[in-house]
């Protein structure tokens, strides 16, 4: 320790226990990271490794996989289900589940088709109507859970069937409605990309924000006599991050460019990340997921937190359904069926959201869906049938759940719950 000799007044508040290893500077940060991983706090490590393996394997099997335009397509595809996964993260954090997100998105796409194309209502009205249906469904689940103590697993399983029925009913015998290609919604889902200059500019923002926030935190923490991250570490992190981001943007701009739909998805991930980590609501979500009775005794309105999560989940599923319809330029009986449901839930879990509640981040939706979509895209490029695709995606999901369970055991062994 270097601080003891400079007197007791200089001793940082949070560094006064002599048993605490003083992790400082670069090597300290690295050591801390290795410790966390060993004790089961894996964070985004499995996803990063997964993405690396997947892209290596697929690019060897078919070099087109890494072509800029293929990646742009991948991002278009990922956005719609990504929205759904973002909602799933919210309910998983509470230790609940929503199995009906796929049907909810299917109903939303059907509503867009029926209200907007068939009935001729203005598009924003149709979108509003679909979102309202999402809110209503979330409220129903919350009521069933809070008032009748119905496990969300069962309630949403019933919802899955009911919503699917509603989707088929409103689509009627024709079964499929095409959305006009020239409309802004379909263009948003299929072609609209950011201008290159704007994407490079926006890619600078996270770095700038990290710098600003990091410096501010450093100043505030040292003013409050708390330890803080070394400036060199902050700069290094921010530099690598920004360079990486600029490269990614540059590479995608060699193709069609960055889809606006994907940018919107990332924006929502960031909003949810803020809400979950920096607001009282988010703190309450983690508390209810970790120990609902303790949360209740701390004065948290557990029922309201559950309600907010179910409503958010259904709304994100609705948004995903609308963007999915835009992507396909159609609202059909197939929308939201098959693998949409499980892909969204799998994405959240693969991204590191625990099925046991209380653990995970909004970023899980983004990285999880990239893994899922990369697999699906790569297998399609190899001309594999959907039967094989399902089996492989299922295997990856199983691996993700195994990692989650093992990390949980490891955390218990290392006293991290």
């Amino acid at each position: 320790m270097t601080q003891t000799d400079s007197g007791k007044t200089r001793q940082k508040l949070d560094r006064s226990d002599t048993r605490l290893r003083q992790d400082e500077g670069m090597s300290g940060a690295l050591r801390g990271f290795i410790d966390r991983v060993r004790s089961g706090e894996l964070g985004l490590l499995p996803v990063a490794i997964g993405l690396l393996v997947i892209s290596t394997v697929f690019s060897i099997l078919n070099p087109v996989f890494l072509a800029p335009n293929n990646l742009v397509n991948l991002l278009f595809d990922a956005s719609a289900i990504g929205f759904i996964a973002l909602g799933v993260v919210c309910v998983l954090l509470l230790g609940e589940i929503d199995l009906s997100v796929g049907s909810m998105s299917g109903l939303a796409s059907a509503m867009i088709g029926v209200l907007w194309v068939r009935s001729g209502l203005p598009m924003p009205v149709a979108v509003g109507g679909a979102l309202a249906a999402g809110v209503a469904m979330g409220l129903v689940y919350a009521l069933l859970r809070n008032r009748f103590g119905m496990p969300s697993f069962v309630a949403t399983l019933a919802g899955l069937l009911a919503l699917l029925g509603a989707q088929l009913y409103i689509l009627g015998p024709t079964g499929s409605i095409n959305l006009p290609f020239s409309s802004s919604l379909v263009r948003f889902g299929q072609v609209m990309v950011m201008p290159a200059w704007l994407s490079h500019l926006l890619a600078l923002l996270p770095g700038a924000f990290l710098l600003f926030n990091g410096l501010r935190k450093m100043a505030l923490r040292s003013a409050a006599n708390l330890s803080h991250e070394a400036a060199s570490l902050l700069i290094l992190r921010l530099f690598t991050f920004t360079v990486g981001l600029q490269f990614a943007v540059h590479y995608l701009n060699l193709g069609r460019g960055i889809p606006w739909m994907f940018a919107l998805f990332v924006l929502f991930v960031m909003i949810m990340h803020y809400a979950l980590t920096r607001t009282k609501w988010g703190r309450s979500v983690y508390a209810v997921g970790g120990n609902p009775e303790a949360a209740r005794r701390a004065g948290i309105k557990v029922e309201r937190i559950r309600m907010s999560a179910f409503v958010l989940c259904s709304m994100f599923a609705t948004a995903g359904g609308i963007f999915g319809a835009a992507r396909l330029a159609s609202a059909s009986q197939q929308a939201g069926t098959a693998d949409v449901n499980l892909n969204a839930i799998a994405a959240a879990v693969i991204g590191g959201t625990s099925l046991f509640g209380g653990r995970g981040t909004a970023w899980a939706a983004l990285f999880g869906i990239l893994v899922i979509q990369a697999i699906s895209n790569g297998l399609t490029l190899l001309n594999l049938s959907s039967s094989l695709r399902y089996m492989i995606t299922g295997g990856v999901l199983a691996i993700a759940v195994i990692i989650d369970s093992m990390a949980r055991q490891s955390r218990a062994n290392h006293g991290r719950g």
Partner: protein
Amino acid sequence: MTRQDGNEKDCILRLRGISKQFGAVSALSDIELDVHAGEVVALVGDNGAGKSTLVKVLAGVHQPSAGTIEWCGQKVVLESPSRALELGIATVYQDLALCENLDVVANLFLGQELSPFALDEIQMEVRAWTLLQELSARIPSVREPIAALSGGQRQTVAIARSLLLDPRIIMLDEPTAALGVAQTAEVLNLIERVRDRGHGVILISHNMEDVRAVADRIVVLRLGRNNGVFKADTSQSDLVAAITGATDNSVSRRQARMTASQEA
């Protein structure tokens, strides 16, 4: 045995005829309890006597099946834990009620976070350290999840949390059961400090030494009923008799055996 008279105006909490039924089990029947400002009331009784149940009724966790609760002369219904917290009733539960996945700071401020829309982590962390130092806590880092702490460290966190809001009454359900020597002394000091500030304290403990060291009155529960109110200088055997409900009990028999073998 003293009567629960006390001064009318500084009586902050008054329970009359409180009963609590769990299905067929009567955990509490017809309980009376007064707590005055600046007073430490010890609540003692055997395992399953209903102490924790009474605390939970006062914390708003359980609803009483019958009876009334008066707070500063006003009849109140403690319909939820948040209502009790609002009134200034803070509780350290026997099972601690902490969220193991959250860190120490988050647990301390759970439900009371500073600036709800942009959590002030730095302020909260500083406050956490000051609170913990007051209790001479031995906690290496407040950014570790609760699951990484020892039983006594967790108990300290739970006690620190109850002090956060500067409550009018603080209820401690076996707060020192897992604490070390220094930390127990610190908690007893703290109880005295809280009392001297004019707040009320309800202390549950199986340690008669601690109870007699800090309590102004000792309320005995037995099988869910009031079984007498005692002064702090009451002899151990009288207390044990009230707790177990007989003068000839396992504690007195054991004591007799010990003295007999010492004399032999």
